[in-house]
């Protein structure tokens, strides 16, 4: 089902893309099934562990924008995502020297009687009050399971508030129960942005929309992107972290949209292309050398700057390749397992193979057999063609029991993960783990060098892992770890 920007909600990934959260097989098998319609069926778990919900993804994305307010229509527990905001997006804005004085996060604090009688009137009052308090440039209404189950009409409030609230009000339909795939939450937020905030272009600029997670400052990753882009004669605008409503409004004026995570950007990238003709760069993610070069070249092609890109790449190569080779020589034949979201996971399998390492297994949290353009994800297409081995592959919705079970069997030299709360379990069973929490880890030549070094160091000094593993145990029974990891999937 294609993107419909005019619709009040976007469809979930299950409905739109046929994405799934359960699978066990191999890379080539899931690849073959991806191109046959109706092959990849969702199955049920009869043992499951806490995962995440699309509300977390949706509202945590929206909260990155510096001058918006979020009115969360739900009970207080749902709004807990707000607690992480000051120390992440507040600090990022401080570090980048941007203001966040108009940001606010309020909650309608739904109680038992609200679940019976509904609470749309209170919602309206809270929206007005929130506007008066913070004067944000836009207000997002965050849906919750409770507002969804009792059928609150979020669009219904918009007309009534036009006079009192002179900024866009955009409902985000991220009711947690609606999709088992939390990445649907990214889409819900980008849908709200496309529908209510982005304006038709007035001019064309030389800006490129960069869809990324944080664009943190750990090693001036924003500066690194800018360095490449400037060589190509364009400027990056980073979304959504520390962006502004004005920047969102002008997304339609950009020369292109590119991203560091294809799972994150599918909806907005394709949506901007479909609605406003902004070219969406369909490349590998800019991680590892092959990914980075593909990313840079595909962008350069759209800009007609192929020559400049080649010069830039050659300079980078000159500076870093020998050093990378030196480190990578020590990684030959090392065995790895990867557990990540699908975009990053497949990309990292390619990077580790390029280091001469053996990918033993890839666990992804969900699986998109296609993106919103109906095409196979580029990183997957690449691996289906070039991966040296047909490694085992699972899709498991962050199910700890499943991926730790696999890890415990394979005993690789290292686990590479990206999600918070994943590495400790690996250390507990004596396997070093490296969390590539920063999305710019392994960005470009310099990042690739750093990543290779990090892998080497993690494998070389196992002191922490061994110390911990000697003294603690997993919360699973011996018996259960001997069962196949998919024993509880029906």
């Amino acid at each position, binding site marked *: 089902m294609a993107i419909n920007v005019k619709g009040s909600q976007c469809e979930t990934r299950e409905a739109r893309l046929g994405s799934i959260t359960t699978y066990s097989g191999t890379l080539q098998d899931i690849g073959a099934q991806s191109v046959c319609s109706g092959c990849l069926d969702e199955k049920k778990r009869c043992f499951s562990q806490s995962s995440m919900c699309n509300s977390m993804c949706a509202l945590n994305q929206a909260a990155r924008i510096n001058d918006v307010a979020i009115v969360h229509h739900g009970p207080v527990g749902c709004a807990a995502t*707000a607690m992480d905001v000051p120390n992440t997006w507040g600090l990022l804005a401080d570090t980048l020297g941007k203001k966040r004085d108009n940001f606010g996060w309020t909650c309608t604090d739904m109680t038992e009687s609200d679940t019976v009688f509904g609470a749309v009137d209170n919602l309206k009052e809270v929206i007005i009050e929130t506007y008066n308090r913070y004067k944000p440039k836009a207000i997002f209404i965050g849906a919750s399971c409770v507002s969804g189950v*009792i059928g609150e009409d979020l669009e219904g409030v918009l007309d009534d508030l036009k006079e009192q609230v002179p900024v866009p009000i955009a409902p985000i339909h991220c009711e947690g129960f609606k999709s088992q795939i939390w990445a649907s939450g990214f889409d819900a937020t980008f849908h709200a942005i496309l529908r209510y905030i982005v304006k038709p272009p007035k001019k064309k600029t030389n800006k490129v929309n960069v869809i990324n997670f944080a664009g943190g400052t750990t090693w001036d990753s924003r500066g690194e992107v800018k360095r490449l882009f400037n060589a190509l004669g364009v400027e990056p605008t980073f979304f959504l972290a520390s962006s502004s409503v004005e920047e969102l409004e002008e997304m339609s004026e950009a020369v292109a949209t590119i991203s560091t995570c294809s799972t994150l950007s599918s909806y907005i990238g394709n949506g901007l292309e479909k609605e406003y003709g902004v070219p969406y760069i369909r490349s590998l993610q800019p991680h590892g050398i092959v990914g980075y070069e593909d990313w840079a070249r595909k962008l350069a092609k759209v800009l007609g700057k192929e020559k400049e890109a080649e010069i830039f790449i050659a300079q980078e190569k000159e500076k870093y390749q020998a050093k990378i080779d030196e480190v990578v020589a020590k990684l030959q034949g090392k065995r790895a397992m990867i557990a990540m979201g699908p975009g990053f996971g497949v990309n990292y399998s390619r990077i580790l193979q390029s280091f001469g390492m053996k990918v033993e297994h890839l666990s992804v949290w969900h699986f998109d057999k296609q993106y919103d353009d109906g095409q196979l994800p580029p990183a997957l297409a690449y691996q289906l063609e070039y991966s040296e081995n047909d490694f085992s592959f699972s899709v498991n919705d962050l199910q700890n029991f499943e991926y730790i079970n696999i890890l415990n069997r394979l005993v690789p030299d290292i686990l590479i993960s990206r999600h918070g709360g994943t590495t400790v379990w690996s250390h507990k069973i004596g396997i070093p783990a490296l969390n590539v929490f920063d999305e710019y880890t392994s960005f470009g030549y310099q990042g690739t060098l750093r990543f290779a070094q990090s892998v080497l160091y993690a494998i070389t000094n196992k002191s922490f892992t061994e110390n911990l593993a000697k003294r603690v145990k997993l919360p699973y029974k011996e018996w259960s770890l001997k069962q196949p990891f998919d024993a509880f999937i029906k």
Partner: protein
Amino acid sequence: MTKILDEPRYVCALGALQTVEAIYKAIPVVHAGPGCTAKVSIGGRSGYLGTQTVPCTNVGETEVVFGGEEKLHDVIENSLKVMDGDIFIVLSGCTTEIVGDDIDNVVGTFKDSEKPVLSVPTAGFKGTNIEGHEWVVDAIIDQYLSKRYFGEKIKGLVNIWGPVPSYDPHWVGNFRELENLIRELGLTPNCIFGEYRGIDNINLVPRAKYNLLVAPWVGLGNVKNLKEKFGTPYLHYPTLPIGAHETSLFLRTVGKEFNVDSNLVEELITRKEKEYYYYIERSCSFFFENRASSKMFSTVASADYALSLSRFFVNDMGLVPSKQYITEGVPEEHYDRIRQYFKEFNYEIEAEVVFSNDGYQIHQQIENDDYAGTPLILGSIYEKKLASKLNGTFLCVSTPYAERVVIHSSYVGYHGGLKLLEDLYTSVFQKFN
């Protein structure tokens, strides 16, 4: 009136899953949406369990439409097979209660299982995580401890209750320090939370001679329940003892109530105070000779920290209280009693108490009040910017406290008071003073 919660400082009743996780090898089984566990796990990271290992039904569209009882049954059944736990506690969330799943009925089918399976309705719209904490403890009392005989009372055994796991940033350390104080009095502490305290400690609860509750309000229901079920008398001491004044008072009160020889108590206090004041004596210049020290303070915190810190800064350090903001959604029935606690400082000093969960209004009031110079603000991460705007001193002591890493330290006791002073004056000395 508009019902608005601006800057959430607590979560819903389901947050009590952190109380379950605080009991070693107790396994929460969550019957709720897929994101609920991760969202309400506000303080906890990994431990024996971690967010991702908590069994959960991850309720989706199917369960909302057709009910989730079957899924719950499967997940409980398989949790018993997979998870290495001693006691399983089923916690329900909003969606499952709205769609009307009969959770007790499902849990009832496991009454003969090898490990106890209990259930607690913790729908988000029914209460806060602090209330949920009390409900979990009640469930253990009613559904487990009351069901069999665990043995005779043990002389000198004292159950300790009070800090809410993970919600109190220092909960583990605070419990350990309370245990130490009880031990110093020659009594035997028993606590069911933190550091390998688990089912054996739960089983000792009915055998205790006394229950000690160190909290202004949460847990009162539990100690009353324990008195009713097991005839155990309780002492309700509302203040977490921080620093010399309060800790000595605490030791005297507990000693008297639990029949400890008063000579022993006085000797202990003399020794501890002497030690404490050795360090205070050495540090006076830090406290009083800089340009940034505050004379007046406000807490923006849960009732336990608001009260305990106020008592420390007034009765130990000689500061004057401005308004004290209590932010964890205290049930109204406790308002009067808590207000009274803030009228019992040295020199008949009193503090005005404001119960509010509206961060915006709290900040407005603080901005409008006169602190006779730079204010000292003891609050959550939300107060950090406010404090710097007012050129004040800030210490993060209450949820959300994301900027603090607390591993095992505590503000309780004589040592805790010194630790608090270290933290506070470190922040004073980090700016021009």
